[in-house]
């Protein structure tokens, strides 16, 4: 399953819930304000560190928010919309943690 999270981890429990629901073959893609969780040094890093899933963030949304690649947490991969489509196609379904 591919999970998407579109909210800042500082205003919503979506990321935390998503990570606790995601199985180890799943992927989590951060989009929109969800990409703030991809920045290192914040409190949200602890949530991601506990995750066994593959982590992705959408680069157009990172760029729009001024989050450069050197500020990203370890192990997170950056994808574009083409990568988003690939992830959605690769996994059997998509769960949007709106």
């Amino acid at each position: 399953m591919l999970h998407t999270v579109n909210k800042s981890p500082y205003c919503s429990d979506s990321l935390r819930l998503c990570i606790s629901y995601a199985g180890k073959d799943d992927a989590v893609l951060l989009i929109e304000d969800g990409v703030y969780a991809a920045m290192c040094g914040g409190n949200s890093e602890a949530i991601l560190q506990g995750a066994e899933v593959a982590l992705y963030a959408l680069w157009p949304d990172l760029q729009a928010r001024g989050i450069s690649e050197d500020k990203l947490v370890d192990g997170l991969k950056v994808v574009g919309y083409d990568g988003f489509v690939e992830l959605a196609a690769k996994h059997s379904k998509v769960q949007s943690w709106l």
Partner: protein
Amino acid sequence: MKFSVMVNEGPYNHQASDSAYHFTKAVLQAGHEVFRVFFYHDGVNNGTRLTTPPQDDRNVVARWSELAVEHKVDLVVCVAAAQRRGIADADEAKRNGKNADNIAEGFRISGLGQLIEAGIVSDRLVEFGD
């Protein structure tokens, strides 16, 4: 592969419609089929042709219309959600005694069954919202 997309927020206040648009385009570019884009909740507000954004910003509604015209993407606005929010085509306006309609080109108004059908027929349903 067959994709369907659901859009739950209106234009400009929330990024959902932008994300859904870029995703839908990327689906087409990857050679997949887009079975339907379904607009629900405040997402029905993406379907009014009266939208007039400033010239230095993107035109979210016109962009969806172009996608419908150029790629034959089926853009469906939920009738129940549209009635609540004042989105109408000519038939709906007549049925409900309104003196105007505002549906944008390429969009059509239909029932919630279209969403369920999209869920059944498509290989993937991807939702964008608040």
